[in-house]
């Protein structure tokens, strides 16, 4: 997974509350074989309304999304995070997130930043014409003006994001323990290994 430290750039000022996973990626996009390309379906229903912020040229490829309360509620589909990543988003700022979404976002290296509503409102204002910076190391969101908003982040998640560690990466760090287990297992229950070999022997 990519390391996340400082995210700087334009931020799409969406501001909507209760953006659910059906809005992030509608169900008809789920019968796919790739996480890539889902960006085309991301926020499909919003993009169909004229004058929506996704259509503004300045926001093309923007790394940050600013939304309202309860972002990512609804189903557990991981496709929501995949779709956002695919459209280039690596961070979302909102007053609150659904638990499942923040878990899925984290698993996929998307930073979910919670800030109080007034600060989110200020960022929505600034974002219209100016870039925004999220400094994960120091836990601040800043603007080209004097704004400097501190945010909380789970220390474990911060460590993973800063070092580009995903759950699989972390388990792979336990490689020695896994190998030891495999050796013990090969000694005590050797028939568990290579069942395909049995098949060839039978044939």
């Amino acid at each position, binding site marked *: 997974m990519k390391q996340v430290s400082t995210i700087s750039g334009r931020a799409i000022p969406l501001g909507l509350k209760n953006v659910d996973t059906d809005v992030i990626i509608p169900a008809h996009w789920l019968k*796919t074989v790739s996480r890539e390309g889902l960006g085309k379906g991301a926020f499909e229903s919003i993009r169909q309304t004229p004058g929506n912020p996704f259509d503004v040229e300045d926001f093309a490829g923007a790394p940050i999304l600013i939304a309202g309360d309860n972002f990512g509620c609804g189903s557990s589909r991981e496709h929501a995070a995949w779709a956002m990543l695919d459209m280039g988003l690596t961070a979302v700022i909102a007053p609150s997130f659904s638990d499942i979404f923040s878990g899925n976002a984290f698993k996929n290296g998307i930073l979910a930043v919670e800030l109080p509503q007034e600060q989110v409102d200020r960022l929505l204002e600034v974002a219209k014409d100016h870039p925004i910076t999220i400094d994960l190391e120091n836990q601040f969101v800043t603007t080209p003006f004097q704004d400097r908003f501190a945010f909380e982040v789970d220390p474990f998640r911060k460590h993973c994001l800063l070092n580009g560690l995903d759950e699989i990466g972390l388990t792979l760090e336990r490689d020695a323990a896994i190998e030891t287990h495999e050796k013990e297992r090969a000694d005590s229950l050797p*028939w*568990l290994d*290579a069942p*395909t070999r*049995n*098949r060839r022997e*039978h044939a």
Partner: protein
Amino acid sequence: MPSKPRTLYEKIWDAHVVERQEDGTCLIYIDRHLVHEVTSPQAFEALRLSGRKVRRPDLTLAVPDHNLPTTPRLAPDGSRLPVADAQSAAQLAALEANAPSFGIEYIDAVAPEQGIVHVVGPEQGFSLPGTTIVCGDSHTAAHGGIGALAFGIGTSEVEHVLATQTLLLRPSKTMEVRVEGELGPGVTPKDLILHIIGVIGTAGGTGHVIEYRGPVFERMSVEGRLTVCNMSIEGGARAGLIAPDQTVFDYLEGRPYAPTDEAWDKAVDWWRSLATDECATFDKSVVIDASHVEPTVTWGTSPEDVVPIGGEVPAPESFADLSKQEAARKSLDYMGLSPGMPLEQVEVENIFIGSCTNSRIEDLRAAAAILKGRTKAHNVRWAIAVPGSGLVKRQAEEEGLDRIFTDAGFEWREPGCSACLAMNPDKVPPGERCASTSNRNFVGRQGPGSRTHLLSPAMAAAAAVTGRLTDVRKLLDV
């Protein structure tokens, strides 16, 4: 070795702990990973993007099942027929390409061994007692029937297992479902598990792993045990299992992926040691009297909505719980049924015999025994029998069962998931009823607007003959 008496589940769990964290979460080693085309493409893609390999391709087996049409797959000239639905075709093609590129053994769509992953695993001897088995499908619980700890996982977990051969898990609570006495004539393992779900409810096993215990299971065939464990998930449990015994060993010996010779003897010794210790305790215990189990059907849209075939559609007010009353009202509306209606008066237009719950040879034999010399009723528009695997199909044909089905007006199909979830072209039309041997009667499960009644293969055959839900015992020579 811990001296505390342990359950079957605890013994399997302990044997697979790679590391235990302070909060009780364990890194658990996975012995067998079954892969199908629906939940694997994004996992393989992520491995590719991150440059990771499959840690143990030798412990992984891939087979397509969910999307495959059950109509013939080969043209008369022997060439493969294309899959019409573009998205289904893409998922199937992805598995066909991913398996060899990651070094995984792949059973292709036209191989005789192809079938529903939960039928293929035990049939090939790939699933073994005492092992941990995972698959990106919630009915993986089925493999508990041979005494394995088997459960379904999501796409990110599929990727985690492919890359590390482990999963981070918290131990489950233990639950015993003890069945006393004997099942009556015409009452099958499917009736028993439907009855059990009716007793414990769809949340009854939440957070638990169920062990099914009692003389009924000791006498039950492996096929029947797989049927029972398959639906543990409908009872809320992530997994369900039955202690492996001689019946299981006899079933597995000589199967393609099973150990041989000395290794086999060693394996059997270990398997015998896994049974729950006499003084071991369960966190929860439910006792069922087998003699109370009748041929059972569902009337609603939740697997707990069960009633004996001689019963009536219940009135929503008969439920104590207010939210259940509301759910029952919605179910009855969706199902087009009214309270007080005898189940035996419910007419069905469609019959589906298949799915990982009931598509093994014994299931087909039970249905054929009822259909022999009979034909489906005029109001039954569509009746299909879908064997669980190519090998089941071949065996059934050797026994002449295919002729019994086709003579009775059934279509005899190629193996796959089919109308269990209607991801392929086998769908029940909106507003029509289906007597189905599958495991889920959810709204729209067998196609948008479809109305499902879950029952056993023999009961499905009886419904085909009379055109109504019917007590199969009336058609038996008993």
